[in-house]
């Protein structure tokens, strides 16, 4: 079974199962009212969506790499970032173990 390609997790059924609650919470943010509730009180919203303490912690710490490792799908996880006004580059760089500045500097060097 394909599980990883060049250091990127492949979003398998197993990952989808592990990340189910996290991804479901992320999808809920396609509703503007839910985005407002999330931004107003993150912890309360995340508990209300049934996330575990470790999942709440990943979101609170903006640990995008950790969210992907916990079964987050990138297309869902960027909805969390979107609600918080954080851009894809910052999320992606973090999943690669870099800061946004490091990522941009590396790109310039290419």
């Amino acid at each position, binding site marked *: 079974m*394909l599980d990883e*390609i*060049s*250091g*990127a*997790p*492949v*979003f*398998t*059924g197993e990952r*989808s199962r592990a990340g*189910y609650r996290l*991804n*479901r919470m*992320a*999808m809920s*943010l*396609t*509703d*503007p009212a839910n*985005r407002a509730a999330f931004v107003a009180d993150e912890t309360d919203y995340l508990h209300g969506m049934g996330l575990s303490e470790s999942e709440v912690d990943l979101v609170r710490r903006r640990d995008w790499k950790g969210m*992907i490792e916990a079964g987050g*799908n*990138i*297309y*869902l*996880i*960027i*909805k969390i970032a*979107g*609600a918080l006004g954080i851009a*894809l*580059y910052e*999320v*992606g*760089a973090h*999943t*690669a*173990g*870099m800061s946004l500045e490091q*990522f941009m500097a590396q*790109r310039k060097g290419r």
Partner: protein
Amino acid sequence: MGRIVGGIGSSHAPSFGPVYDKGQQKDPMWAPLFDGYVPVRTWLEALRPDLFIVVYNDHGNQFFFNSYPTFALGASEMYPQADEGWGKRDLPDMRGDPDFSWHLARNLIDDEFDPTICQEMSVDHGVMSFMPMLTDTRWPVPIVPFAVNVIQHPVPKARRLYKLGQAFRRAVESYPKDIRVVVFGTGGLSHQLQGARFGFTDPDWDNEFLDRLETDPEPLAALSHREYMERGGTEGIEMMNWLPMRAALGPKVKRIGRTYHAPMITGYGLLALEPV
């Protein structure tokens, strides 16, 4: 009888729709891409199409992993735009053609393809991001969206998607009305949105894909998922969505337009073909 009169492959992305909406097509970073859509739009209008079949993938907007369809066929009169988490673009809902959708459903199932049939369905940037560059945003041409799971593995094989395009052609040609159909395949090209290779694109692979899709597409249907993801990124596997478009056109095609540009973290491609 219906006829397939054209095929268009296009990248889709949340990024370039809003760039277009803001009228920044001439921005030097984007102009090489947007300029390519202009002659294709002129050609498409001159074709006088009656219907667009759009093969794309949803990004956790219409479908969630509670029940994620491998193939989903729209059969609605209207397809609202999905809010993907950052608000909608200022665009009207898209029009559908449920009569054709149900004809397509019957024919696909006769052909041993079994899509989930959706009488309510929103569409995301997989359909809408590039559409305003190719047609009037009052949407004069109805669409039939056809969503393919390329995000939760196991995903369908490339060969299956190629055969799907051949089934589209049979379905169009058995339609009693004289309609002119353009098939779209959208997604890709190379991009990697997470993990150690974040930001990866491969213009060589993307251009090889565009070359082969035009002139000798069948071997692309034999490539494995591993090959698509190693060469184009785990998210770049979306480019398999272009295979049904190409297969629907039949063996020989004439190229109308082709553009490639990789300004950010996605290899953007556009390919317009006519059957001969």
